[in-house]
């Protein structure tokens, strides 16, 4: 009987649903913006990874003979420094390429840590005793109540400005979103029958949390993570701009912008390029995130 059923199913390949990843890709590639965003992001990521090979100069080397050189398309510019140099004679292109490394590193570490902590705390809140739930939810409510940048500023002011502390501060700011999302989706799953079935069979609590329920909460979490990377990059750049993020001479885009402020009258490109790098990166991640959302979770609507 079982055999005949299998054969019957195999005879009708048209009805068979495409494999999950293929289904996702078919839907994702429909969204032109998302594909473009992913392509640009891939280029930026490659630049960040291969910075040591691609960058024409060291991001820290100061060419004293070529201070504040304009980019090649402006009169006075040349191909030695394609995007010009900054106030200390450092090559802008190289600094931007190494800056991609810093920004993506911040974005991905914040996302990674928030993802893991968010899953653990969110599942704990959903599965544990009520007092654990109240404790976690209240703590997250508090972190959400303080405006993001103000909270990040407070944390950095306490810990001292540095790249590592930027990551800590931005993670604390964005963690509540992950925790809430995981908790809410896990709660919704808990009332479903497959969870009851698993419980009846006697699946352990740990397995129930991570193997049974978690995979069904992943779709919105993946979308949140993608968008979380862009938010983390923006927030970290804002801290860098305020002088509370990565410290000189690290070539971080926000810090580069802060250094460029004094040249706002004389050398506009020193100011324009780092900001453009932030904008392009964030836009491409957001476009990709939009595509992910539409492909993974048609119900979820972003405002």
């Amino acid at each position, binding site marked *: 009987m079982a055999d005949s059923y299998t054969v019957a199913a195999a005879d009708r390949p048209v009805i068979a649903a495409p494999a999950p990843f293929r289904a996702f890709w078919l839907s994702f590639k429909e969204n032109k*913006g998302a594909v473009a965003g992913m392509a640009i992001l891939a280029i930026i990521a490659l630049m960040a990874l291969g910075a040591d090979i691609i960058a024409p100069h060291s991001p820290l080397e100061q060419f004293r003979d070529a201070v504040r050189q304009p980019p090649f398309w402006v009169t006075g510019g040349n191909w030695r420094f394609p995007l010009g140099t900054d106030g200390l004679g450092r090559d802008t292109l190289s600094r931007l390429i190494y800056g991609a490394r810093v920004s993506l590193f911040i974005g991905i570490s914040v996302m990674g840590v928030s993802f893991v902590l968010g899953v653990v705390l969110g599942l704990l809140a959903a599965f544990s005793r009520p007092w654990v739930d109240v404790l976690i939810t*209240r*703590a997250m*409510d*508090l972190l959400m*109540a*303080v*405006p*993001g*940048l*103000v*909270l990040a*500023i*407070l*944390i950095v*002011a*306490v*810990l*001292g400005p540095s790249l590592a502390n930027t990551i800590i501060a931005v993670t604390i700011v964005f963690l509540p979103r992950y925790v809430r999302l995981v908790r809410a989706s896990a709660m919704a799953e808990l009332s479903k029958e497959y969870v009851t079935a698993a419980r009846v069979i006697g699946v352990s609590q740990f397995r129930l949390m991570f193997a049974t329920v978690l995979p069904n909460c992943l779709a919105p979490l993946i979308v949140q993570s993608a968008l979380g990377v*862009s938010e983390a990059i*923006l927030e970290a*750049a*804002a801290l860098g*701009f*305020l*002088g*509370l993020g990565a410290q000189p001479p690290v070539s971080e885009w*926000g810090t580069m*912008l802060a250094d460029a*402020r004094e040249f*706002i*009258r004389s050398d*506009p490109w020193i*100011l*324009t390029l*780092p*900001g453009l790098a*932030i*904008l392009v990166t*964030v*836009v491409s991640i*957001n*476009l990709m995130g*939009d595509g992910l959302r539409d492909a993974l979770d048609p119900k979820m*609507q*972003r*405002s």
Partner: protein
Amino acid sequence: MVLYFLKRAALTIPTFFALMFLTFAAIRLVPGDPVEVRVGERGISPERLAQFRHELGLDQPVWKQFFDYVWALLHGDFGTSVVTNEKVLTEFFTLFPATVELSLSAILFAVMIGVPAGAIAAVKRGSWYDQTLMSISVVGFSMPIFWWGLLLIMLVAERLHLTPVSGRIDLIKFYFEPVTGFMLIDSVLSGQKGALLDALHHLVLPVIVLGTVPLATIARMTRSSMLEVLGEDYVRTARAKGLSPFRVIGLHALRNALIPVVTVIGLSVGSSMAGAVLTETIFSWPGVGKWLIEAIGRRDYPALQGGVMLISAIVISVNLLVDVIYGVINPRIRHGR
């Protein structure tokens, strides 16, 4: 209704206490001694140092310090700046109107452009206009506003000389004592010719910069909410009844589509007060955001502590108010719970 409000308000009380704990704990974790900052590098006698410690309550056990802190906060004492020796509360509320003026103007700007733009995009769904607007809005909410501000200063103020570079009013041409702290009101009260115009002129760029992210969010939200409403039965009924498209869209659809948008607008008010930190720093706007950043630079921890506490408390209260207003305009929420 009153009961609903009280219930919502009561729920925020634990948040306030937790906030007190957070600011207290954060400042306790700061490496170094707040007394040293006050003493400076020349040093003072041990007796004087002990007296300082006593004045600041640092010789007490930690739990007692926290209790005193909460007690003082409940009595409206947010500490004293170690740099200016002014009450933090006084300093804050001297500068606060400037931030409110900037934030509210920015939200007004965002709503006035975002709501119609989003509504039109929904009506002309899929059109060239819709696609362009949605592309611009992605750029809008991805915008690093500190860069956007500098870019606008560079182009609009420095190159084209269309607006002033910074500040709230031209202090060489106009001088008057602040009455309300709101420059737009004070400039009118001063009776000086052209003062209001000059104040508005100074407001243009900061408002655009601070309003950009809310504008993009509001436009997208209005569009998606409007799309949902346009598919509802009552809109079809209104159309079938033969009402003019203008009445259908403007009166029946938009009014209902705006309900969720109101929440977004309200939350933007809170977050823009915080976002004002960057905008104020760029435009030398003398508000609480710039003050907070300067407090960090001067290691003025009481000011930082009090400032974070006050800004957060205000944002929490604004969000509570938004919640209540939402309950008023959307009875489904109130009775659902």
